[in-house]
């Protein structure tokens, strides 16, 4: 049996562990404008990434956007997931495909669509001005809201499908039993469905939160040059600034923060679901 996991284990080793180890080694080196990178074992890149107010701000923005997106995806996704899970008609597989539809379009193409919709001369402004509701175009694009909207649209399918698979496993009779004992739909949801769906809430939120923390194309295209999140900041260091050691350190800061928040969040939910 152990032999069966060997190919996958090798793949992970070659494609994940090795590059990460190299990246970590690079993050301890020093940057030189002339030689680009000097071998060293110094924590200075990490100290800068943590202490620099600019990068503190970038990290705070990233966490704020990721949390907002996760929360919105959860609130919007739960009713959709419930509806999908309880669907019995022959259209169910079509509904699943439609849920996945946003993922069939690449990030850049999708962002271009949002730009056409939200821009100064975009469809929304043109429509509102055409109706005479506004005189001046609204600033919709290159805002935090635009980024959140764009990311939620990408991550919602992950949330919905994760939740739906967990809700599907909750027997309908259990909900009926709650109703039979006098619980209205809201009480039944709060006391029975939600507690039983908590593992799905945890899994979906973790998955979506990680995706949001590492979003790249959407913040770049919908947030504009002034809006900075961590993944684009890492890219800037590697490609524009050619400062590999600092870029590597930023990448590890992002990794550690994401992991910490993810673990803390799931531990919290796990405790809640145990308490019932």
């Amino acid at each position, binding site marked *: 049996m152990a032999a069966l996991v060997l190919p996958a284990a090798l793949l992970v080793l070659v494609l994940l562990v090795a590059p990460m180890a190299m990246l970590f080694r690079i993050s301890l080196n020093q940057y030189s404008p002339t030689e680009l990178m000097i071998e060293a074992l110094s924590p200075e890149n990490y100290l800068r990434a943590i202490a620099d107010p600019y990068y503190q701000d970038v990290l705070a923005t990233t966490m704020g956007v990721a949390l907002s997106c996760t929360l919105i995806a959860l609130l919007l996704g739960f009713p959709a997931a419930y509806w999908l899970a309880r669907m019995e008609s022959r259209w169910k597989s079509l509904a699943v495909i439609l849920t996945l539809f946003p993922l069939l379009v690449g990030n850049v193409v999708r962002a271009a669509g949002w730009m056409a919709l939200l821009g100064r001369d975009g469809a929304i402004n043109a429509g509102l001005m055409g109706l005479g509701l506004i005189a001046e175009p609204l600033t919709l694009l290159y805002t935090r809201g635009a980024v959140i909207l764009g990311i939620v649209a990408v991550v919602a399918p992950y949330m919905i499908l994760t939740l739906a698979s967990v809700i599907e496993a909750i027997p309908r009779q259990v909900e009926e*039993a709650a109703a039979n004992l006098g619980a209205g739909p809201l009480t039944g949801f709060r*006391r029975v469905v939600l507690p039983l769906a908590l593992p799905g809430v945890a899994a979906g939120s973790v998955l979506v939160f990680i995706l949001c923390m590492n979003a790249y194309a959407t913040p770049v295209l919908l947030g504009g040059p002034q809006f900075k999140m961590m993944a684009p900041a890492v890219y800037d260091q590697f490609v524009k600034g050619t400062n590999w050691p600092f870029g590597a350190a930023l990448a590890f800061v992002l990794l550690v923060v994401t992991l910490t928040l993810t673990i803390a969040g799931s531990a919290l939910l796990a405790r809640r679901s145990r308490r019932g």
Partner: protein
Amino acid sequence: MGTLVLEGLARRYGATVAVERVDLDVQDGELVALLGPSGCGKTTTLRMVAGFVPPSAGRVLIGGRDVTRAAPHGRDTGMVFQSYALFPHMSVGQNVAFGLEMRKVGRAERERRVTEALRLVRLEGLADRLPRQLSGGQQQRVALARALVVNPAVFLLDEPLSNLDAKLRAEVRFEIRALQQRLGLTTLFVTHDQEEALTMADRLVVMDRGRVRQIGNAEALYERPADAFVAGFIGRCNLLRGALESPGRFRAAGGATLPCAPGAAPADSVLALRPERVSVETRGEGLPARLLAVTYLGAQTEYHLDLGGTKLLAIRATPAEDDPRRALAPGDAVTVHWSPAEARLLPALPGDLVEEAA
């Protein structure tokens, strides 16, 4: 407690009729079983009473109140589900207390009634367990306690014994009946198991393909079945196709002429004759028959007979060892006899499964 009245209750799904029309009066404290093969509409009927399936026509009255349009949580029924449907994330005590909480019963009173209900189903001391830590039989009793504790106007049981093993089933059957009688619960019980229905119910409703075939107590259904379906479904029965030759004489499809109860034969009629009412002798008065097979079943013996081309099953108490009938073997000639009143002419609806029991 109260009464339950179903008036012309029907449910259609598009062109498919799940329940054609059910009229039923369940008296205060009465246990009525809905009995029938799978797909007969019995569960749909129960779910219409609970409020999970909206009826296409008809009314449901609980304690005189029309609840046809009421939501499930406003009906005051206590249901035990086939799968028990316990809340897996709540302890046994929390499961049982749920209905009381919904009814805003105070904490002290709640605890008292939960303890009382668990004692009633002999689960005292298990209040802190989770459902998955209990055996199937214990989970079933938690489901009972959870439905009973709220004192519902109508108690609904959806095949509550089908997930238990045979030995436990007989035990729980007796327990539920005793509990139901002691508490005077007005109960509607769904089952496909005729033995279960016959032993537990005050009255039975036999259903088939969405239609009520007959309502009555066990004896009425067995002795005076309304049609061939009921005769074949309740107990075993010889059901013979043929036509009335003259009053009291029925010519079966196989060729034999058999004595039967006097009276006019309905169109499409069959002759229904219970196998244990057919006596088998080695000689004497009666119709000549040839033995096709003999099956010894301990207390009883089955005789598969051929009456000049018509097959007939007889079931008799196994004869004593010195009785000549004990030695009967396939191929032997015998004479058979029955009281003509036992052979009834019954209507058979088109599509009814009419098969010879032999």
